[in-house]
C-alpha cells in the first residue's frame, strides 16, 4: 500500500485540554488504580500472583504449552504423517519421517515412523494444532518445561505420546473418543529416535 492510497484513513492525535496538559489528573488516576490493588490484596485477598511452586498455576484452557501426540481408540498415534504441521510451522522445528502403515493397521495408510519436535526452537504459536487434519497434535497446558541439555528438549514420538498419557484426563481430546485408560505408549511402533 502506498502513502497516497485514497483508501488510507488519516488519524490525527486527539488535542490535549488544559487539564491534560498539566498531567496531574492522570497521575492521580494512576495512583488510584495502584491504591485499589494494594488495598484489594491486603483486605480482600485479591492477589493475582500465586505462591509457585507450592501453589500450582492453572493456565487458561487455550494456553499453548508442550505438545502432545494424541492416540486413537486403539492406542495408536492418531497422526497420519501428512506433514501439514511441519509445513505450517514457522520455526521449522517439526521433523517427521513418514512410512507406509503396517499390515496390521488395515484402516491406515500412512503413519509417522519418527516424529520429532525441537521444543527449544518452537515458538508455541499453535499453528501445528491448527493445521492438523486429524487433531493428532495438540498443545497442552504444561508450561513448566525444563531440561538439563538441548538434546533432552528434542522430543521424539515416544515422549510426545507420553505427554498425552499424562494430560489425557486433565485435557480431554476435543473431537474423538480417546483410547481406553491403561493403553500404554507401547502400542506405538518403536521410534528409531530416542
Amino acid at each position: 500500500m502506498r502513502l497516497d492510497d485514497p483508501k488510507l484513513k488519516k488519524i490525527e492525535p486527539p488535542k490535549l485540554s488544559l487539564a491534560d496538559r498539566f498531567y496531574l489528573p492522570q497521575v492521580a488516576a494512576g495512583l488510584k488504580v495502584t491504591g485499589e490493588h494494594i488495598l484489594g490484596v491486603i483486605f480482600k485477598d485479591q492477589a493475582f500472583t500465586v505462591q509457585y511452586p507450592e501453589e500450582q498455576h492453572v493456565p487458561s484452557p487455550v494456553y499453548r504449552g508442550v505438545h502432545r501426540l494424541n492416540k486413537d481408540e486403539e492406542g495408536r498415534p492418531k497422526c497420519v504423517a501428512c506433514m501439514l504441521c511441519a509445513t505450517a510451522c514457522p520455526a521449522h522445528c517439526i521433523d517427521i519421517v513418514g512410512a507406509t502403515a503396517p499390515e496390521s493397521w488395515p484402516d491406515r495408510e500412512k503413519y509417522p515412523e519418527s516424529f520429532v519436535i525441537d521444543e527449544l526452537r518452537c515458538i508455541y504459536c499453535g499453528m501445528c494444532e491448527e493445521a492438523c487434519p486429524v487433531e493428532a497434535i495438540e498443545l497442552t497446558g504444561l508450561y513448566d518445561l525444563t531440561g538439563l541439555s538441548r538434546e533432552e528438549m528434542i522430543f521424539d514420538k515416544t515422549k510426545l505420546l507420553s505427554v498425552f498419557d499424562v494430560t489425557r484426563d486433565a485435557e480431554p481430546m476435543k473431537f474423538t473418543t480417546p483410547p481406553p485408560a491403561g493403553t500404554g505408549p507401547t502400542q506405538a511402533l518403536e521410534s528409531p529416535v530416542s
Partner: protein
Amino acid sequence: MATIIINGEEYPIPEGEKLNAIQMAKRVGVEIPYYCWHPSLSVVANCRMCEVEVGSKDPKTGEIKMMPKLVPGCQTPAKDGTVLVTDSDKVKEHHRMIMELLLINHPLDCPVCDQAGECGLQDYSYQHGQANHRFVEERTVNPRKDVSSLIQLNADRCIMCTRCVRFTREITGTAELQVMRRGSHAEIATFPGVTLDDNPLAGNVVDLCPVGALLDKDFLHKQRVWFLSKHDSVCAGCAGGCNISVEENKGKIWRVKPRHNPHVNDYWICDGTRYGYKAESAPDDLIPGMFALDKDGEHVATPIDQALRKVDRGLKDAVVDGKVVAGILSPFLTVEEAYLMARYLKEVTNAAVLAIGPVPFKGEDRTYAPDKTKGRSGDTTFLDPKPFTLYAEKAPNARGVRAVLEHVQGSVVEYDDLLKKVEAGEVGALYVAGGYIEGWIDEATAAKVREKVGFVVVQDTKVSALAHKADVVLAAATYAEKAGSYVNVDNRLQYAGASLPPRDGSLPGLDLFAILLDRPGPARSGEVLAELAAKAPAFAAAAGGVIPEFGVVLGAGAPKAEPPAFVDAWFAPMGAAKSR
C-alpha cells in the same frame, strides 16, 4: 492470417502446428481444465472436464454461430474462425458439475496421498469445484493393489481418465493395463497374469496419472511434494540424454521425473533413469574425500590443496624425467570438465597423451516407435508421435569428450591404444578422471597400470580397483552434484544443472581443474563453455555459454524458436512456488 476468437478476443493461430482448443487457449494465457487429454496420447474426451462453448464465425458475413451444447476442447481443432467461450456461466456450471461427479466416490484422503500438492483434482476443486458434498450414499471402496513391484494403484482415487491405459497401448505397445468392469464399478487393472514389471517405461504411468491413483512405491509416503526442490538436469544413464527433473530435499534426492523435450525424450524417461539416482548417489561407496599415499604405502586423508599440489608435482616430475604424461577422460565428464582437464594436461606438457575412457555398452538399443495408428483408440489428428530409445551406450557424453579431444589434441586416442602404451612402459604419469556409474576397470588391468606407471592420479566418485592403488585419489562430484553440459547421440548439447551441493570432502571436477590451472574465481560451467565455444568451431553453437531449453545440435544452425515445454497444469508451479 488465420485467427481464433477466445473469450471475445481475436488471436492469430501459429502456423505449421495442429493445435486443439486447450493448447491454443494456453498459448494466449487462457486455462481450459482437463484430465484425460495428453499431447502424446490419442484424444478420447472421456473426462468431460475441458468442455467449453464452441462456435464459428462466418468469414463472409462475420456472423457468429455457437453450437447449442458444450464441446470438449481437446477434440476441437483451433482453426480459422473458431470461437471459444471458456468463462461463461454455462461453462462454469459444467465444470462445477464435473468436479462434483468426479468426487462422488473419491476418498478425499489428501493428507496421506502422495499426489497432494500436484493433484489435478485438488487444483481444479479449488478453481472450479464447490465446498459441499451432496452425495450421501455409501462410497464404492476399491482396494489398493500393485500393478507392478514398483507401482501401486489406489483404485478409489482413480478418475478413469485412462491415460495410463492409453500409454501402455499407444506408446509402449505392451497393453498391460485395461479398464475392468463398467460404469461406477469400472476399475483400472492389469490383465490376469500380467504386470508392468517387464515394461522399462512403466514408471511413466505414475507421472501421467493426474491424481494419486498410480503411485511410485519408491517414493510412497516418504515426502510431501511441496518440500521438494526441483532441479533441471540431464540423465547420465545412457547416451540418449533424457531431460529430467531431479527433486531433492534436505540434501537427498527423493525422486526423478521426466522433463519434456520434443527432440530427445518427448515426455518420458525409462525406469533406469527414474531409479538410477539410488545407485549414483548411494553414499556408502562414494569416495569420501581426497587421499594420498604416505611413505608406508597407506592412503591417508589429505586436504584438497595438498592433494592437488601433489598431483601437480607428480605430473611435472614425470615431465622432468622425460616420461610420457597421459590422461584418461571418461565419457561421464561434462564437456567443460573434459575441456579444462585436457587444457591442464596439455599445459603440463604439450606431449601429453589424452585418451577417452572406456565407453560402457550393455545390451542393445531398444526403440519404442509409437505411430498414429498402432494401438490408438481415439482421435489422433493432433498427434505428433516421436520415438523413444533406450541406448545400449551407457555413458552420457562420449561424443562431447571426443569433440573436446579433437579440438585440443587434434585426434582422439582410444582407451585400448593407451593401455598398450602403458603396457609397453611408455607412460610415466597417468591422470584418470572417472565418474562411471558401474565399475569400469578390473583388478588385473588396475594392477598392470599400477605396476607400469610411476605416478597415478584417480579422480572419481566411486571406489574403483584403480583407486585402491593410486598415488593420489581425488573425490569428484556425482552427476547430481555437478553442473555442465553433455552431448547426446544426436550431437545435441544439453545443459544439466547441479541438484545437490558437492558432498563433504569432494569438489566437482571443474573446480579441481580450475585450481590446477590457477584459474581465478569459482569455475562456472557457462564461462568455461563460452571459452570453448569461442575457440572450437565444433562448439560454435554454444556461443556465449548459453544453451537453449531444449539443447542445441552441434554443427547445425541456430535452433528455431519453439513453444515452451509441456507441463501438465497440476505439475506447473503455482502460488509461492512460482517465484522460487
